[in-house]
């Protein structure tokens, strides 16, 4: 048996209006070379200027990942020669990254695990290259887009842990609203470093690197394949070669190049960007915008709101849903009913309509209004849900529907008795069955009758009690 050691390097494009160091748009497009400013091409005579929003979002993400933040923003030059960055270097961070020594707690099956973050830094994305048989084509639209790189410590020990971490990290980006993090648009990409070592040994094995994997299921396939491949090599007494491999569509990894010598990027502080001091007030201002993450919300829902693990998981999974749920509670609505409405009616409607919550017609105030009426016993739960579906269909405030159709529940005993007396008089056979034969189930029959007569507005609990009383009277 071997111990698996995995470290991840995750790149994520930051959502901003403009690029990291130029005023060209940061926008995905299929039309090549239309979002390019002179800075992105490294043309002489023009200097880069740092985008405040990109820095703010990188610092916010670093805070959400419990990192230490720097006292100033400094960028560094990473020198390399390749046409994806025509300047001949990438502006990145080595001296003082936006975050260091952080962590993200994840839940793998039943177990919780802390994945340590070595650092988070802000840099610029490169141009995209498409390779053909004997030439390559370059599109500079992506060049200069703000990119965060999150480097974990080598503390992940299975494909499942790696994928859970990536999914949860994606949630961090979404919860913090710093990126759409869509892997199909190349906004989130991952490098995997993996080595196998003898169980019980504290020596690290030979590291194999797999670069630029977009889809999470490819990360899983690549890791599983590598564990099997490296185990078999070690079982045969052979050595694992330090190399970079790529994953193919068949789920197998193939050697790209052996790592003979570590590339020397000759890093130095970027002279075109003066360091920017970060004041405590500025950092505190960002810290206040860091939202509660998925796992923290899950714990809160279970421990503070006493929800079942199932409900808590469903509600904390998506930031918009979690915010929606919490906002309804802030309006003072009953927890149990809110959980019921959100986990059933709201989620099923979103699924049915194939929309996100931001396009959902029913606002927190509207739903809270309906929930409160159910809680006060003015309408039944069943009715409340029906009204919600009607409101969605008609795109109308459910509270107005209730008012207009006089759907408020009838609690007035006198009025209910009129319906009950009518029902009993119209159905003497059922009354006889209860009085003479003791058949209790006729009570439900009469509840149905009263519901029909009252246009389903009768309060079922009061109706039940009154029917019982009236039938008992006839027994005597």
């Amino acid at each position, binding site marked *: 048996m071997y111990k698996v050691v995995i470290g991840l390097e995750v790149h994520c494009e930051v959502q*901003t209006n403009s690029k990291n160091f130029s005023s*060209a748009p940061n926008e995905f497009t299929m039309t*090549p070379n239309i979002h390019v400013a002179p800075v992105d091409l490294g043309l002489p005579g023009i200097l880069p200027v740092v985008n405040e929003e*990109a820095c703010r979002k990188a610092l916010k993400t670093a805070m959400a990942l419990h990192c230490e933040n720097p006292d100033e923003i400094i960028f560094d030059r990473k020198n390399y020669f390749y046409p994806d960055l025509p300047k001949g270097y990438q502006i990145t961070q080595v001296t003082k990254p936006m975050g260091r020594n952080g962590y993200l707690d994840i839940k793998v099956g039943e177990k919780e695990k802390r994945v340590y973050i070595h650092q988070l830094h802000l840099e610029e994305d490169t141009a995209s290259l498409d390779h053909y048989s004997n030439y390559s084509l370059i599109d500079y639209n992506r060049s200069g887009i703000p990119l965060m790189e999150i480097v974990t410590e080598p503390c992940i020990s299975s494909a499942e842990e790696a994928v859970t971490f990536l999914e949860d990290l994606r949630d961090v980006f979404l919860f913090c609203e710093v990126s759409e993090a869509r892997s199909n648009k190349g906004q989130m990409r991952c490098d995997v470093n993996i080595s196998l070592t003898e169980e019980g040994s504290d020596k690290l094995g030979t590291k194999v690197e797999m670069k630029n994997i977009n889809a999470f299921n490819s990360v899983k396939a690549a890791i599983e394949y590598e564990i099997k491949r490296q185990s078999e090599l070690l079982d045969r007494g052979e050595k694992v070669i330090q190399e970079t491999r790529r994953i193919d569509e068949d789920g197998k990894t193939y050697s790209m190049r052996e790592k003979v010598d570590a590339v020397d990027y000759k890093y130095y502080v970027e*002279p075109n960007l003066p360091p*920017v001091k970060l004041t405590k007030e500025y950092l505190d201002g960002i810290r206040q915008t860091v939202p509660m993450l998925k796992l923290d919300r899950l714990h809160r829902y279970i421990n503070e709101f006493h929800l079942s693990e199932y409900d808590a998981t469903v509600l904390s999974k998506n930031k918009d849903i979690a915010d929606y749920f919490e906002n309804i509670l802030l309006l003072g609505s009953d927890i149990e009913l809110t959980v019921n409405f959100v986990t059933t009616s709201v989620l099923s409607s979103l699924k049915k309509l194939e929309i996100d919550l931001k396009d959902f017609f029913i606002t927190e105030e509207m739903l809270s209004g309906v929930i409160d009426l159910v809680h006060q016993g003015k309408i039944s739960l069943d009715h409340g849900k029906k009204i919600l579906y009607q409101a969605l269909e008609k795109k109308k405030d459910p509270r107005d529907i209730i008012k207009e159709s006089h759907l408020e529940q009838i609690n007035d005993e006198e009025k209910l008795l009129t319906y009950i007396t009518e029902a009993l008089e119209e159905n003497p056979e059922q009354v006889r069955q209860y009085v003479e034969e003791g058949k209790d189930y006729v009570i439900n029959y009469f509840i149905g009758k009263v519901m029909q007569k009252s246009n389903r507005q009768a309060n079922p609990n009061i109706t039940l009690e009154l029917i019982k009383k009236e039938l008992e009277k006839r027994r005597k």
Partner: protein
Amino acid sequence: MEKEKLKDYAHKLMFDMKEEEYETLQQEFDIILKQMDLIGEIPNIKEVEPMHFPYVTYEAKLRKDEVIENEVLTTGEVLANCEHVLNDQVKVPKVVE
């Protein structure tokens, strides 16, 4: 500085030189390294933080996140300096396998 080391660096930086150029460079390096030694003699030099910039700036100096249309180049301008262009993209020899 040994010549082999210089050749290795030159190789990594993707250029080559004539033998006599290496010799000139070697002599220049001897001077540079002596100057480095002089700096190294300054007491507590390791404690001194490198000064990259002479003055301090604050976050107010960061750029507002706005697209400035007239700073964006047309596709024609982007490709103006390129020798080979195909489908509005820069065409270069393939260097990956």
